[in-house]
């Protein structure tokens, strides 16, 4: 193991880690917000919006992220929409994540006993008030462990952006390998950094679980 090489390539990895984090966090925020909205709309308008919802989830979940990214990055310019590699990655990962996040929220929603919603209706709460004051607070808390999981998956999925030349971790590792002809150090370092980032995400998730659930025993 060449430690001198590791020291040499660390700054480049540090910079690339920021790019990976930026793309992942933006995509997670977009994906979680869009996923929450998608599920909420599907709950409020099960017939009209439900069809769109199921179609969207079916399409996104059934195709590889790489194919989706190619459509956005290489396909959209044909229709006059040109995005740079980073924009395409954030939007692509955001859409990809939205389908999974939406399904996570849907599952969490379904685990709330129907009697609680009936009580809301019986006491004159509107559909939206029930959603906001009864379902959402409980569903979000129930969803946190799965949301954390999905956030980590998106972090790792962002490595696909290396193929369309986003200078994130995976692409940086590849470049260094091509320049130094050393494989072990850059790729081990690459894995280590993803692992550390995933660890940080898991820690954040665990912290919010604790924070959201600290007063209820339920």
């Amino acid at each position, binding site marked *: 193991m060449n430690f001198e090489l590791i020291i040499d390539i660390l700054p480049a990895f540090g910079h690339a880690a920021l790019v990976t984090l930026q793309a992942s966090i933006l995509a997670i925020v977009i994906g979680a917000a869009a996923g929450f909205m998608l599920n909420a709309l599907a709950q409020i308008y099960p017939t009209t919006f439900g069809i769109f919802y199921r179609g969207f989830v079916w399409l996104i979940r059934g195709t590889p992220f790489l194919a989706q990214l190619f459509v956005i990055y290489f396909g959209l310019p044909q229709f006059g929409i040109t995005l740079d590699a980073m924009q395409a990655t954030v939007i692509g990962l955001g859409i990809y994540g939205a389908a999974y996040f939406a399904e996570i929220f849907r599952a969490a929603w379904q685990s709330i006993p129907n009697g609680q919603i009936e009580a809301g209706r019986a006491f004159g709460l509107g559909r939206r008030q029930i959603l906001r004051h009864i379902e959402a607070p409980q569903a979000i808390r129930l969803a946190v462990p799965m949301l954390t999981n999905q956030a980590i998956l998106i972090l790792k999925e962002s490595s696909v952006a290396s193929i369309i030349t986003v200078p994130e971790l995976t692409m940086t590792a590849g470049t260094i390998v091509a320049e130094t002809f050393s494989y072990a150090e850059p790729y081990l370092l690459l894995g280590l950094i993803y692992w550390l980032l995933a660890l940080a995400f898991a820690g954040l998730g665990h912290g919010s679980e604790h924070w959201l659930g600290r007063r209820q*025993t339920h």
Partner: protein
Amino acid sequence: MLPTSIPMISLRGVSKSYGANRVLFDFDLDVERGEVVSLIGPSGSGKTTALRCMNFLEEYDAGEIRIRGALLGYRVDHDGRRKRESERSIAEVRAPVAMVFQQFNLWPHMRVIDNVTAPLILAKGLPQASARTRGLEALDRVGMAHKADAYPAQLSGGQQQRIGIARALAVAPEVMLLDEPTSALDPELVDEVLEVIQSLARDGMTMVMVTHEMSFAAKVSSRVVFMEAGRIVESGPPQQLFTAPATDRLRSFLRTWFERSHAAATPVGAIHSLPSPV
């Protein structure tokens, strides 16, 4: 009661089916202000469905349900066809009605006080402070004011059901619907809930209750309605129903209940000599 007064709740020819399974047949019932009406009968007789129809938690297929004269759930268009009303106007018609559920149906993520004030703040638009005052009064009424800051899961079943009753009281209802309010409770927790219900009855609260607690029904009801297979078999004051049932069906229902709860076979007429649960 003036003869011209409008019943609190009035059901006329109400029918309801789940698919091919008809659960209510041409059901008629008037509940006058101040009455305590108990619906009794075997499981599957339609008592809970009838009760749930009274605040439109179940849609009914035919007939009319009126709350203080206002048609619940539907409007009749000029072509004579009935259309489902909007959620908002359904909520308006059912506003005088409050419900107590078998499974309590409290909101576990809210403190006790918030469970009781949420309907006041969200549905009635009361400011936080006055909602809290009313909520605490309602909790005090059921002896639970000291648990205002607890979460439902920290309380016993009986305490949770008393919170359920307080939530219903807080909206100052004109009629309360109670769906088997003690059926989900451990036997030793039943009495505290029945005591609360009895004190509401004494105060003149109009109530419709589905119950399996026969002695309790005999004690608090002004009228008992015995149902089977979606129809009313017999109804009248509890003395009459429990001591001199007119139909064989009710007689055998009471005998079964009596034998099951007291092992020894005693004539149904002796029901009032039983130790009462309250």
